[in-house]
């Protein structure tokens, strides 16, 4: 395989998937952060797993639409259960979230363990840590493959999924920009509680679920949280203006993904070790380092 | 029962002294350069418009907030050395009323000094707590969970807790906010009885129309001190106009006719 083909197929494609995942998560992440609902991202990413497993059980395969419906369904079930606990059970919102998402995640893990998923790379290890390194484009033969429809059709399905999700989320954010921009300031009781109520809350929850399920393949359940929180948080420390904050989030997300992926793949080699380390883990770590730098130096960081 | 404090009001250090107190978050302090003295055995109101820094002042006095500058002295001593002489009654809204605790348990918190970290709650503690509940007419509610109480009842339980501390200086943050008339009368009766025993009371108060009737002294503030002193001298239309920026209607109705 030529150098270009190897770069294209083994580095560029998975790196792009990771970058799209990070950027797709950063968008709803910005609004979650501003509404002080960062932990909703925590909850949603835990509920994605059972959603996907149920979708697999019902359809027998891993395909975009069932996964998406499964994850969206799970997110909605979770939100409904949390509301039930808070309203009818008078449970404190953080406790309600923790209870619901732990229960759903535990159920998802057990279902997954008992399900025969040989043949699709869905197992607990991947659910937790993702498998970005393995989302390669084997059929790439060189830069000309980018213009070859046959070769393009062998791109990993996760690529198309991620691109589509990123597009949808971008369109959603553009469409509902004004409403999203003022939503952190609505002083409703539920908003103060951090519960996602109302059309905006629901839309945000679904957008986050979409990003989480699309990114699931790349980085797994838990590291999605890093993508929801760290780039937007770092961006928050850079500027007061919403538009600029979104811009910074996307930049930081992309930087985390690119740097993280490269460090994971090549870092060990540079240090003299043979194998690469987890790309997803490294991306999360880099996003944390960027947040750390922003916390120390960001112009808008003041408490 | 509760023991009386020395009746010597005029000499000796003020129960509460503030010197050049500056505190608050952010670039601009919420209160600046506050100098005030609250003599022992008096009952004072702290009044001012919204955002005047009244809450910040109270928080600084009880030590929940570190001042940027200035000092707080309780009976001539720094706060750290005289905490046992101070009792704080917070705003009702500051507490989660769904918390699993009963009325009697809340009042027992006032006996913390006696109990210490590990001491067991004994019969004498319960007796004392029930006494204090009796003083605010809440003895029948001892075993109720606090969320089952009305606003006025909750306020009285807070007061009973402060009574259990047996302090000499009482700091109250809006004790009459959101309570019914009967509770207000009951609370004022307890506070006046404390004053009669020689104790000192300082309350952040929101209702200007009752300042003259309830309190001996007043501190009017709006970030800085506007004025302080006995109600007859300090609680004037002019002072209120300075503090409230002329935004308040019917100022003359608040002020007793004698002061002009």
């Amino acid at each position, binding site marked *: 395989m030529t150098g270009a083909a190897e770069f294209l197929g083994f580095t560029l494609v998975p790196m792009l998937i990771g970058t799209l995942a990070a950027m797709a998560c950063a968008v709803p992440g910005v609004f979650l952060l501003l509404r002080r609902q960062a932990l909703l991202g925590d909850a949603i990413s835990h509920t994605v797993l059972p959603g996907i497993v149920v979708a697999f059980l019902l359809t027998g395969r891993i395909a975009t639409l069932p996964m998406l419906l499964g994850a969206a369904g799970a997110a909605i079930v979770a939100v409904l259960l949390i509301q039930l606990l808070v309203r009818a059970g008078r449970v404190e919102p953080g406790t309600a*979230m923790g209870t619901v998402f732990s229960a759903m*995640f*535990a159920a998802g*893990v057990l279902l997954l363990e008992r399900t025969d998923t040989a043949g699709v790379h869905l197992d607990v290890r991947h659910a937790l840590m993702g498998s970005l390194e393995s989302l390669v484009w084997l059929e790439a033969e060189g830069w000309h493959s980018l213009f070859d429809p046959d070769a393009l059709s062998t791109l990993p399905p996760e690529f198309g999924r991620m691109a589509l999700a990123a597009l949808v989320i971008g369109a959603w954010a553009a469409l509902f920009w004004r409403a999203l921009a003022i939503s952190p300031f609505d002083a409703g009781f539920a908003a103060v509680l951090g519960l996602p109520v109302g059309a905006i809350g629901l839309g945000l929850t679904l957008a986050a679920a979409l990003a989480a399920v699309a990114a699931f393949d790349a980085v797994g359940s838990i590291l999605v*949280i890093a993508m929801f929180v760290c780039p937007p948080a770092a961006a928050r420390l850079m500027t007061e203006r919403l538009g600029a904050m979104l811009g910074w989030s996307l930049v930081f997300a992309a930087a985390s993904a690119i740097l993280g992926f490269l460090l994971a793949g090549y870092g060990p080699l540079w240090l003299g070790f043979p194998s690469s380390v987890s790309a997803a883990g490294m991306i999360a770590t880099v996003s944390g380092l960027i947040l750390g730098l922003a916390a120390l130096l960001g112009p808008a960081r003041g408490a | 029962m509760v023991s009386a404090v020395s009746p010597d009001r005029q000499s000796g250090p003020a129960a509460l002294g503030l010197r050049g107190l500056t505190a608050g978050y952010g670039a601009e302090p919420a209160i600046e350069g506050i100098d005030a003295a609250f003599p022992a055995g008096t009952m004072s109101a702290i009044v001012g418009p919204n955002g005047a820094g009244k809450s910040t002042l109270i928080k600084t006095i009880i*030590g*929940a907030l570190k001042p940027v500058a200035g000092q707080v002295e309780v009976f001539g001593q720094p706060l750290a050395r005289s*905490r046992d002489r101070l009792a704080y009654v917070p705003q009702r809204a500051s507490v989660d009323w769904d918390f699993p605790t009963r009325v009697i348990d809340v009042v027992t918190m006032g006996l913390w000094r006696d109990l210490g970290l590990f001491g067991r709650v004994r019969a004498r503690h319960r007796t004392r707590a029930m006494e204090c509940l009796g003083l605010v007419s809440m003895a029948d509610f001892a075993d109720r969970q606090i969320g089952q109480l009305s606003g006025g009842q909750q306020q009285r339980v807070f007061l009973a807790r402060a009574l259990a501390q047996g302090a000499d200086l009482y700091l109250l943050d809006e004790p009459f906010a959101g309570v019914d008339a009967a509770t207000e009368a009951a609370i004022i009766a307890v506070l006046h009885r404390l004053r009669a025993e020689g104790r000192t009371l300082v309350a952040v108060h929101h209702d200007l129309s009752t300042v003259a009737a309830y309190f001996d002294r007043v501190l009017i503030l709006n970030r800085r001190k506007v004025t302080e002193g006995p109600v007859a001298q300090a609680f004037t239309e002019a002072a209120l106009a300075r503090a409230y920026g002329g935004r308040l209607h019917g100022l003359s109705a608040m002020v007793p006719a004698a002061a002009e």
Partner: protein
Amino acid sequence: MLGQALALGLGYNATLVTLGAAGLGFAAGMTGTFLVLRGRALLGDAIGHATLPGIVAAFLVMVALGADGRALPGLMLGAALSAALGVWVMGWVTRRTRLGEDAAIGAVLSVFFGAGVVLLTVVQSLPAGRGAGLETMLLGATASMLRQEAYLILAGAAVASLAALALGRTMLWTAFDPAFAQAAGIPVRRVDRAATALALAVTVIGLKVVGLILIVALLIVPAAAARFWTDRGGHVAALAGLFGALSGYLGAAISATAPALPTGPIVVLVAVAIFALSLVFAPRRGMLSRAARARGAA
């Protein structure tokens, strides 16, 4: 086989493990009560995830020193140090920046976990088999627990429970009204740190039983369930301990009949079942009771 497991009839080791899980559940339930009542339930999630880099680092250090990398005390120490660092970072972020506690929790949770995952993949590239077993700390695996490990867990759970009992009243009062506590002279900051340290201790003790990802559930779900049954703070903590112990006990027993499954999810689902029953059936605060009262009033 389940019957035997429940009756502690599967042999000394299995019995010890089940009791260890029950002990952990008790300590977690009691300790978690204070987190829940203070409204900081999800702090437990961050603490749990923040242990991962420390665990793997401890493994690597022990291996480098020629010892058995999987010695539980060493791993627990690494976990504790790393989680303590995570707690410190969370405090720093909330104090020094405008970010809220939710963002601090989310950031520490995911970044520390990510770093831990990186280290895990380093371990996996080491000579075969040495890293096996570390991943059981993610979701718990009582089936592979050694006798000494069960002793350690029981001892740790006992110490944590005693500490919670001793400090319980002070932690309750501080949770209820921190402003009053501060004014009265209770060292609120130190009490908060003690409560966090207890949660951290329980997390570290529970690594092999329920794992770091789900320990948060064992901290908060029994307490949430207990709240439905009583209005007295001390009783909530005691009942939470009981529910936690029951979850640990049943979960470990069921897990013994299915050794290929991770223990954590099983224990959590038992705890959630107890919670659901409490939510629906508890007198006065349960949903059925409320509905009956509402209809009666109508």
